[in-house]
């Protein structure tokens, strides 16, 4: 909007100065403080992370009654627990008595109730206070008015979408279906890639610490103009090494198949297309993607046809979306069966957590490829990730410069861009980043009630 009026991004800075609250995203540029400022970071935690739907875990991690999974979201220690009814509830992992974290393992089974290790207060798996040793020593009227009487607090909103458990900490905010809208089609596609329509999380998450702002990592997920540049040393060398050593082998090693598409041209990435959805979500790879040309794994197609029939199978496997970003901090790769949770630690520190899934009913080789992709791309030892991280960390350094206050995300900007509808455009556009920051800005501008 501003861009249109001025016809030029650069003029905006002057306009910003006369506004009472500085504009941090002006339509084509993001103010550097969005990445650097600790105050903005705390404000994000409160206004964005408490009011958005956030991915917590996958139901396959807690299959049985009493199974739990602990995590920390927006600095809140939480625990997801499978109830005897089969439902998943999410509690704040804090004893109402002295504040002790009740469960300290990453995951496990708590049996029929939770017991605080400090004074043996016990709670139902739904958080309700069950017993206190020598409870008569609490004056019952007084205690009834104490917050502790309510037991372990439940997280306000929990949604189990096809086994993906999402939470919203705040009681107010957009309903789940509205918040995500059609973007859920990426999760649908990943689930449907299983002949049984079921996914299972495999192993633990790879966790890679970056010394940068979390939004730089989010931006990078739909940045289709960087792979052939930043990853030339790994992907380019993979192609070269294979051509030097193939010795008549018909099929390249998996690493070559996985790395070489990173060297695809701008034109290829442009043709892939990009789609955005309302509320900051979007994905690269609409008609095609760097995940489209993986070699066939024998038996998989047949097992899919058995469940879905040929036409539907073609549809499911033909949808090879590249990266789907879910506002604010989740990225899903359907054709690879992986997801990344981008965990903000501070304005200048982020942990990227990568999880993988097995497609139930699919040949084991599918999982082998997923494992290898995850190791090669998402590990702290990944020769691909090293260069991404280098770029984020250099940006953290470079942004200290007084040369400019702005980060540019104006590639293929179109006058009058709006964010209320689903839209598709050229794959090299930075429209998904702009869509993200438009949502970011509108949430940040909301005054707290």
């Amino acid at each position, binding site marked *: 909007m501003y861009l249109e009026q001025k016809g030029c991004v650069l003029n905006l800075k002057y306009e910003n100065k006369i506004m009472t609250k500085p504009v941090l995203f002006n339509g084509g540029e993001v103010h550097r403080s969005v990445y650097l400022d600790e105050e903005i970071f705390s404000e994000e935690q409160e206004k964005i992370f408490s009011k958005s739907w956030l991915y917590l875990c996958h139901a396959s991690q807690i299959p049985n009654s009493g199974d739990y999974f602990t995590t920390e979201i927006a600095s809140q220690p939480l625990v997801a627990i499978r109830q005897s009814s089969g439902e998943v509830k999410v509690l704040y992992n804090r004893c109402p008595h002295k504040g002790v974290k009740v469960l300290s393992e990453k995951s496990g089974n708590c049996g029929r109730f939770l017991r605080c290790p400090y004074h043996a207060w016990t709670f139902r798996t739904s958080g309700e206070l069950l017993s206190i040793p020598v409870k008569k020593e609490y004056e019952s009227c007084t205690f009834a008015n104490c917050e502790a009487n309510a037991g372990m607090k439940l997280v306000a909103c929990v949604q189990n979408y096809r086994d993906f458990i999402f939470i919203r900490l705040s009681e107010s905010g957009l309903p789940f279906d509205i918040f995500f809208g059609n973007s859920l089609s990426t999760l649908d596609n990943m689930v449907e890639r299983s002949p049984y329509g079921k996914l299972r999380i495999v192993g633990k998450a790879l966790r*890679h610490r970056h010394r940068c702002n979390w939004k730089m990592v989010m931006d990078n997920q739909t940045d289709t103009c960087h792979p052939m540049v930043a990853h030339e040393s790994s992907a380019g060398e993979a192609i070269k090494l294979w051509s030097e050593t193939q010795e008549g082998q018909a099929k390249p*090693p998996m690493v070559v198949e996985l790395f070489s598409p990173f060297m695809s041209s701008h034109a290829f990435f442009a043709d892939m297309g990009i789609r955005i959805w309302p509320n900051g979500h979007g994905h690269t790879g609409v008609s095609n993607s760097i995940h489209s040309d993986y070699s066939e794994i024998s038996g998989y197609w047949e097992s899919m046809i058995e469940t879905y029939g040929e036409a539907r199978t073609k549809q499911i496997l033909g949808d090879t979306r590249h990266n789907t970003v879910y506002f604010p901090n989740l990225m899903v790769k359907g054709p690879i069966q992986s997801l990344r949770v981008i965990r903000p630690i501070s304005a200048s520190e982020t942990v990227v957590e990568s999880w993988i899934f097995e497609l139930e009913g699919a040949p084991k080789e599918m999982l082998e490829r997923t494992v290898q992709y995850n190791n090669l791309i998402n*590990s702290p030892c990944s020769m691909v990730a090293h260069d991404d991280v*280098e770029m984020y960390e250099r940006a953290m350094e470079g942004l200290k410069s007084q040369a400019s206050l702005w980060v540019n995300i104006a590639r293929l900007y179109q006058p009058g861009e709006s964010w209320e509808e689903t839209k598709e455009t050229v794959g090299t556009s930075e429209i998904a980043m702009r869509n993200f920051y438009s949502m970011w800005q509108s949430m940040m501008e909301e005054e707290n009630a």
Partner: protein
Amino acid sequence: MRNNIIHHLEDLVYLESKLLDEQRYEEWLGLLDDSFTSWIPLTHNQVDPLYEPSLLYEDRFITQLRIKRLNNSRSFSQQPRSRSQHLLQRPEIIIEENNSAANSLCQLIYTESRGEQEWSYAARLEHSFLLIGSNWKIVSKKTVLLSLGKPLDSLQLII
């Protein structure tokens, strides 16, 4: 005979670390068998590298690629370059009956530095060796890091 083998393999483990720290990767590749694999598990008791995530699981081809990449002029995360230092305890060598295969277990403190930063990792290093012709070759290497509970920074060189 067996004592000679033990000494030889101890020296081989020390030599490997020295070549890695001096980034003499071509010479290091010479110590590896064609079937070489390297594994850094993600959990302490992990048994399966193929169907579960690992920090690293690679064959000789990927290892070669890693070396090519480190030496590529557009390896941006190596500008400036990293350095490493292996501090090894004396390896414990176990030779199989037929004297043509062996394993080694060794405690390690590995330190990597780059620019103004330094990272240290305590680890258990396991090697397996095969006698190929008259040469002992490294067929596999498994490095189990002590701290697997925390998120790791980029680990760039070969541990």
